[in-house]
């Protein structure tokens, strides 16, 4: 069993915490795991990608290439379009229904594509659209968008709830614990 999960988005959206949560869950389950991150210049509002790979055997390469991802979690619509070629046949794409204009769109040299979700669905992609920003605001802060999305992703994975809760306890600072627990539950589709 090998699983490849990608977390993509815009630098500054909190994908590092998301990959940390998943890494902690996978560790608890006793798998071998590798997580590959982006630091430095590309973080500054650029397109960012994190790879999480786990296996009951050994994980070799820390990166995921085109056609290899079982799950892609996209924090933004355009980034979902950019990275969809990395999805494996029959893989799942979990997308935050939020648009963030990149600089070429802001300056008018390019247009933000219309109806990205529709076009992805017509390409045959198994798409799960999540209104993560709205749910994060409901939980108490836009900053919890990342954890809402991880709640949504948890539904597409087989790990028991207590592993996720333990990961949240380990990765989130005490004062944001309640916020993030609520955000995770809302992402899972549960109301308090």
């Amino acid at each position, binding site marked *: 069993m090998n699983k490849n999960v990608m977390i993509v988005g815009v630098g500054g959206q909190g994908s590092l915490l998301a990959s940390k949560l998943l890494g902690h869950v996978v560790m608890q389950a006793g798998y071998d795991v590798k997580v590959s991150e982006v630091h430095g210049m590309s973080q500054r509002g650029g397109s960012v990608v994190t790879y999480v790979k786990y296996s009951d055997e050994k994980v070799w390469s820390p990166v995921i290439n085109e056609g290899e991802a079982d799950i892609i979690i996209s924090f933004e619509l355009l980034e979902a379009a950019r990275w969809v070629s990395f999805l494996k046949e029959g893989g799942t794409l979990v997308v935050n229904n939020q648009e963030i204009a990149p600089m070429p769109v802001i300056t008018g040299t*390019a247009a933000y594509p219309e109806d990205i979700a529709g076009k992805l669905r017509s390409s045959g992609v198994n798409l799960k659209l999540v209104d993560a920003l709205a749910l994060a605001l409901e939980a108490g802060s836009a900053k919890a968008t990342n954890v809402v999305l991880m709640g949504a992703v948890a539904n597409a994975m087989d790990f028991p709830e207590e592993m996720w809760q333990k990961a949240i306890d380990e990765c989130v600072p005490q004062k944001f614990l309640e916020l993030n627990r609520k955000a995770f539950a809302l992402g899972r589709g549960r109301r308090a």
Partner: protein
Amino acid sequence: MKELLLGNDAVARGLYEAGVAIVSSYPGTPSTEITECAAKYPEIYAEWAPNEKVAMEVAIGSAIGGRRAFCGMKHVGLNVAADPLFTVSYSGINAGLVIGVADDPGMHSSQNEQDSRHYAASAKVPMLEPADSADACAFTKAAYEISEQFDTPVLLRMSTRISHSQSLVELSEREEQPLREYVKNPAKYVMMPAFAKAKHVVVEERTRRLTDFAETTSLNQIFWNDTKIGVIAAGSTYQYAREVLGDRASYLKLGMIHPLPVQLIRDFAAKVETLYVIEELDDVIETHCRKIGVNVIGKELFPWIGEFSQKLIEEKLFGPRKIPYAYPEAIPNRPPVLCAGCPHRGLFFVLHQLKVTVSGDIGCYTLGASAPLSAMDTTICMGASVSGLHGFNMARGGDSAAHSVAVIGDSTFIHSGITGLINIAYNQGTSTVIILDNSITGMTGHQQNPTTGYTLKGDPTAKVSLEKLCAAVGINRVRVVDPYNLAETRKAIEEELAVDEPSVIISRRPCALLKYVKHKAPLKIVTDNCRGCKACLRLGCPAISVIDGKAVIDNTQCVGCGLCADLCKFQAITAEEESK
């Protein structure tokens, strides 16, 4: 106990376990976290030095003084520190000395793609290259054993993918190292010609002994599977090859990449039918194989440029891969940009308006080169903005200095901008230098530096006064501006360009991402006032865009800096409290 550790954190763990006492480094992606993580161990004294040369000299001094020492840097940092490296190779050490150098194949966050392995060969020092975090921890400890056994500094070569990937590491206890006796020994430590000549003989003999060591060390490992294909690889390329070929190939995984073994490679080559050398960047291993008479397939198949992947190796060996899903239309790029509220934005906006030539430097502010600000003409290396501008103006003469500026960050100025400024003052230049003082080393992720008043460990300390420093080297015109104030910034630049003597403008405002910087509420658009003129978009702020002919502010990004409101002629952008 196993922990999931970043490659860089695993190096730091190796430093801790090896009983290292002193770490001195300069930040640089992808090496920075080694030193940040090492600083968290109370047993390790860790510091940020002003540049890599100072850092390496501190580490050399510590090693001679009898404590295991480390310095870390990115690949281009080793260019700065090359001077001490080549001679500490001759003198050797007392306690162990390891130099961590992180290459950046693919240039994720660098200005070139140089291959640091050449430094090991030319400085004649051993180099180890880990392939995951477990290796990173183990090889760091092995490097200290080699350093002390062979009386040599050891290079530990990391790369972006190894530095910034997490994998499992088995943790061990720290082994404290006693302070070694320091014995005065000029023939060993004073590298003047008479002594250095004798030491060069020792260095060549050491390389011969290290080559013997490379034949048998467990750092180099053979994994036998099917012998139709043999692969020689190191670091991340070993992982990619193993993922693609699995048991269909046998592998010689090189953990020690200088000096390279001879007999081990010949024996491996003799037992496989087709032998590939798979290495990113230059043909270091391949050239060695050919030199010892081993025929391999290398750079005729695999590229010289960029980062490798399992897909690249698969496609070079077996042809194109089928990709199941493709988005049906063009996707706009998303290049990195200056953050919303970045204090550099106001300065670059003014420079763009003034149409001056901008001699640039290395840092977040290099992003000022991107559209729509497009306010940078050159970027070469740390410090080159200041010295390069002087050369540019001397070459062009006339009123060139009245139409050009250098821009350099606070940390970069201390790193190597100050020497260029001394050169301008001393040699009667008239150039204008702008120091972008955002009170932190920004691009590498917020490291303290000598201008911030805090050490790496977070303790308050002496703070370099940029004003006094510039005055002390002979600059009579030094002034400070707030880059959020566009009119003031523009006036200052115009005035300093007009005078016939050198000047320094300090554009001072802390990085908007610093925790202590309080943000204002996001601004609001008064939709009725907005004419859709897009004047606000000329700032290149990621938080403002125009949708359906009206400006829109992204509340999750806007920090209320007010630059866009300043530019709007129709009072269409306002602070929240005013709009209520």
